[in-house]
């Protein structure tokens, strides 16, 4: 039985005076690929922000059993890719330079990793200083398939390439948990399918636990092993098969009839 990487217990979040997230409970086990579905404004991003420490909440969020103050040193070990990164088109940084930002702040990464090790969490891919940073960056770029673009300036990339850069930036520190907030928004079909392959590689081969929010039910049905469905409240959390066999749920909460339709014909 693998251990819980993340536990979210009775978490409620008030946002501008109204309850954006209402008593949500779910857990993520080591090696899981949890797909979170829910309409726009369902509180997915707000919930993610609470997990990464940018949003106040009530209830408890635990990472490897640590919560509250003890949770903070572990925050750097989470890889987070936000929905949209705004940066200047002519920002003078290469792909390699942007990805290496993911290795900061080094001391806190090492501290968090040691904390995990001390508590007996058998986290095997503890951040290793033995590796040279530049080797690590190149290796990650290879994983996401951007090695040939490493010296390209960030502003010269396409949307799909950019998204892989940001995933590489989150991935380069060997995160204990990767959180992706609607990562395929505004990306064309080809880049989407490339991205889904990458997601599978990261999860299966690199064995990284992933929480991923998406509107693409078809992709979730293919890739995720567990599904959570939320719209302020949590409507479902469990095995993928259970979710997709529950037609009632699908009907009520699916994003669009089209996506359901596609799934029904799978």
């Amino acid at each position, binding site marked *: 039985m693998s251990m819980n990487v993340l536990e979210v217990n009775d978490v409620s979040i008030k946002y501008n005076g109204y309850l954006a997230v209402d008593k949500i409970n779910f857990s993520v086990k080591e090696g899981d690929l949890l797909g979170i579905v829910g309409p726009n404004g369902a509180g997915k991003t707000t919930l993610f922000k609470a997990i990464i420490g940018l949003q106040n909440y009530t209830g408890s969020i635990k990472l490897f059993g640590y919560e509250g103050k003890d949770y903070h040193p572990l925050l750097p070990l989470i890889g987070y890719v936000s929905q949209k990164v705004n940066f200047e088109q002519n920002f003078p940084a290469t792909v390699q330079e942007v990805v290496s*930002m993911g290795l900061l702040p080094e001391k806190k990464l090492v501290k968090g990793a040691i904390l995990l090790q001390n508590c007996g969490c058998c986290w095997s891919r503890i951040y290793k200083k033995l590796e040279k940073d530049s080797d690590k960056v190149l290796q990650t770029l290879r994983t996401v398939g951007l090695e040939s673009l490493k010296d390209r300036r960030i502003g010269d990339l396409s949307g799909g390439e950019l998204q892989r850069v940001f995933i590489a930036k989150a991935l380069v520190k060997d995160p204990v948990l990767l959180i992706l907030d609607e990562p395929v928004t505004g990306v064309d079909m080809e880049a989407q399918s490339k991205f889904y392959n990458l997601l599978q590689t990261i999860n299966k081969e690199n064995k990284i636990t992933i929480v991923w929010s998406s509107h693409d039910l078809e992709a979730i049905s293919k890739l995720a092993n567990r599904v959570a469905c939320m719209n302020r409240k949590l409507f479902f959390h469990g095995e993928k098969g259970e979710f997709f066999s529950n037609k009632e749920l699908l009907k009520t909460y699916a994003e669009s009839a089209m996506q359901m339709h596609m799934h029904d014909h799978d």
Partner: protein
Amino acid sequence: MSLEILSYSFMQKGLVAGMAIAIICSLMGIFLVLRRYSLFGDALAHMAFGGISVGMLAGVYPLWTAFAVSVLGALGITKLRKSTKISGDAAIAVLLVSGLGVGVLLISATDGFRVDLFSFLFGSILLISTEDTLLILGISAGVVAALTALRKQLLHMTFDEEQAKVSGLNIDRLNYIFVVLASITVITSMRLVGILLISALIVLPNITSMLFGKGFKKTVIISMSISVFSVVSGIILSYYLDLAPSGTIVMITVAVLIGTLIAKYAGIVGKSKPLEYQKVT
């Protein structure tokens, strides 16, 4: 053109101090420009002007009061901006006018204490003393060391502040260090181009170097080269043509920018490589 001018002591000091200032302005400037704080240097310089008049009035060495007033003003405005969501350009305007206002007020109120206004407004690099040259060198070395040590953190914060925060960088502390370093840079550099033209050294070499379309490291090196070139050639040229050094330096940075723009449109610099498309399998 003989190089006999290099044998003059005032010229040597001016050139050495000028090069140091060129380097720190360019280094600090890349972060200021990228964070959309281009006029922050101007605002700090105006604040420093207010500080100088406070110092003159109080009989304290003006550079210290200038430093204190700019740092306090800059920290105050950073806080104000955060808590009231005043936009960056408006915050800079507040800083700028209040500094200048205090300065003008105090000068008029004391009616007669003699400030060499002209040298504060337009710089006086060739009147610099040996002590001041050494001070500028020391301060510049400190600023360069601090920026070198913090370059990765500052770049991350500049690129994406939220992500930098998530990854565990202490953004508030970094912001304060940044403001203090910017203040030190501006006050040190006022001797060279003066309060009114300080933004030229902070902004122009950096936007010029960004036209080359390189990564961060190369952009910084290009910017520093442009900055040092402009200061050195500006000082020498102004001597031979009997012009104001600050104006000459600034016009050279402008000329380099225009030259680079022309070269860019002619396709000589800053061409991005053609994209390599991968085969879809």
